[in-house]
């Protein structure tokens, strides 16, 4: 080599980047797809790509704190005799006992109840801890029917028929052997320590015509009292919302691909489904065409992090939002003070996603009694209620700035987009123009 000839700097492939190479080596070594928790991690068009316009001369703002800005939401006004009344438009999404420790479930119940909202069970049944601590509890009805029983169904404040979730629309649940403890095994009627793979379709119905009959049965068993939600992964939100309404749902829950999961194939999380931002308008359109917007309520989830996200989702037409990942962080997940322990697990605070392995140093996504003990349900619950209150205040701040006396009066017209992608997905104009891609204009 002639040292006088300049060399180009070593260049790594954008296509075969470090992560890709590490995944190829991992697959070649293990022979199994990568499984992890959480939702899509890739960069996606999201609520950050939208801005509110606020008010000035043409529109008059409301005084902060003094002039009222309502945040309450009533879910299940269509058929249920006892709708769910929430003080804030933010609910806690379904997360199972099994994927989470009993302490974490209790903390979610405490936090949500203190903030005036509901929590949701998950794929594994209802625990006394969460029923006890949740003023309002939504009972999930899933393909696996783990822990499903009519007593708990009747104890619930609402029933959520889960057809899919954003992290894996079309996929079934998964809970690996490490987390099938004695109690989890007993609740799910499974041997301890086995890999539990849930079905992707319900065992006794397929398609909207059957769903209508299934919803009717659930109503019969619960005396037509409880709101029935239908939760779908954000895959084909226009059709799925329309069909959920036609099947008799009181509430439709649409979960975008940033929505988390306890454990699923990485390829599923990152490559199937649509960004939350892209799901809302098609779902709202379906409701509007059926004359059901605000009559059948729409809950949107998947990557909701702050009051701005809440306000933006509501402005696009949602009635409420759900949080999962953000709630776990509020409890104490990914906390930098645990960095040493995350390092030992080969990861770092903020990137920990091996939730299926059950070794969560924060004591949240685990069934290890020693780790689970680290989470104080009272303190963690308090953190969650603080966080929910901040989000609500933030959403109110934005709503007042746009002249709204209720957060539900936010409209798409209060928004502009920063990127062409977000403008197209949210169907709001690119900032400073009247251009909505795909809708004409200039």
């Amino acid at each position: 080599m002639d040292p006088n000839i300049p060399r180009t700097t070593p260049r790594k492939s954008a296509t075969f980047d470090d992560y890709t190479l590490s995944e190829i080596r991992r697959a070649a070594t293990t022979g199994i797809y990568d499984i992890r928790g959480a939702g899509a991690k890739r960069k996606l068009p999201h609520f950050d790509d939208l801005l509110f316009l606020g008010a000035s001369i043409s529109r008059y703002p409301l005084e902060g704190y003094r002039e009222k800005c309502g945040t309450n939401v009533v879910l299940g006004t269509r058929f249920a005799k006892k709708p769910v009344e929430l003080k804030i438009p933010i609910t806690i999404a379904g997360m199972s006992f099994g994927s989470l420790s009993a302490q974490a479930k209790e903390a979610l119940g405490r936090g949500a109840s203190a903030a005036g909202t509901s929590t949701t069970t998950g794929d594994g049944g209802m625990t006394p801890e969460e029923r006890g601590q949740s003023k309002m509890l939504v009972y999930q009805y899933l393909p696996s029917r783990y822990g499903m029983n009519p007593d708990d169904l009747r104890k619930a404040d609402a029933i959520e028929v889960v057809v899919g979730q954003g992290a894996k629309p079309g996929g079934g649940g998964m809970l690996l052997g490490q987390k099938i403890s004695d109690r989890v095994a007993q609740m799910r009627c499974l041997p301890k320590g086995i890999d539990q793979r849930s079905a992707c379709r319900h065992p006794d119905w397929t398609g909207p015509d059957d769903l209508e009959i299934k919803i009717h049965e659930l109503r019969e068993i619960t005396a037509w009292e409880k709101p029935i939600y239908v939760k779908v992964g954000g895959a084909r939100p226009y059709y799925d919302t329309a069909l959920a309404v036609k099947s008799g749902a009181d509430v439709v829950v649409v979960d975008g691909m940033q929505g988390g999961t306890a454990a699923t194939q990485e390829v599923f999380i990152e490559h199937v489904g649509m960004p939350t931002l892209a799901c809302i308008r098609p779902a709202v359109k379906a409701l509007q065409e059926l004359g059901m917007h605000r009559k059948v309520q729409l809950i949107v989830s998947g990557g909701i992090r702050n009051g701005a996200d809440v306000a933006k989702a509501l402005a696009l037409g949602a009635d409420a939002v759900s949080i999962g990942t953000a709630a776990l962080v509020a409890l104490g997940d990914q906390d930098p003070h645990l960095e040493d322990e995350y390092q030992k697990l080969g990861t770092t605070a903020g990137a920990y996603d091996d939730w299926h392995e059950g070794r969560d140093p924060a004591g949240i996504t685990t069934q290890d009694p020693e780790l689970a003990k680290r989470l104080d349900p009272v303190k963690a619950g308090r953190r969650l209620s603080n966080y929910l209150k901040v989000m609500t205040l933030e959403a109110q701040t934005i709503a007042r700035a746009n002249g709204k006396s209720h957060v539900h009066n936010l409209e798409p017209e209060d928004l502009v987009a920063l990127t062409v992608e977000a403008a197209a997905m949210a169907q709001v104009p690119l900032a400073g123009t009247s251009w909505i891609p795909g809708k004409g204009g200039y």
Partner: protein
Amino acid sequence: MNELDLKKDGVTAINHRLHALPENTNERHWVIRNPMGQHAIACGLDGPLHVEVHGHVGFYCGGMNKDAEVIVHGHAGVGVAENLMSGLVWIKGNASESAGATGNGGLLVIDGDASSRCGISMKGIDIVVGGSVGHMSAFMAQRGNLVVCGDAGDALGDSIYEARLYVKGKVASLGADCIEKEMRDEHLADLSRLLAAAKRKDNPKDFRRYGSARKLYNFNVDHADAY
């Protein structure tokens, strides 16, 4: 004996009547007439009632019942006795798909044939079928017993966990991870008890037992073809 006419009163009124009975009621015997294939008949019962349905029922008859006895003098639609907790559901005719799906306990007897997915995801229920069962029966069956006095369709016991399957006739094919297993005395005793409960005269010794090979319990790349 109280009589209810479903054609006249509708399903909701009839279910409400049965659900509203106090725990210590003396009105334990009920007859439902004119079911007309309607859905969700006598579901969600919670107490020791005895309900006889005269005619064919639609989907989810007896679903999620506890302690009650429901006898259907006719055929049953999809998901009969789904998620049954305890008690008895007895179908004198045939049953459609997913009979006894996810049942936790109690006994489901089907005198005739059951269709596909009989006992899917069963979690402790006992099911006795006098005739044959369709394809994918006992799919992901977790716990409990499925007794088939006739034949079984394709993929019996696919991805089965710990449920026990007893078949007297031919099995079209076994599903992934389902194998024939030795019939020991404890199994013969169990089977005799179930046949007697279903008032069947079949000889337990004429049955074969099937269950999980437990090879899919924890992922192994060499078994990936079975997924």
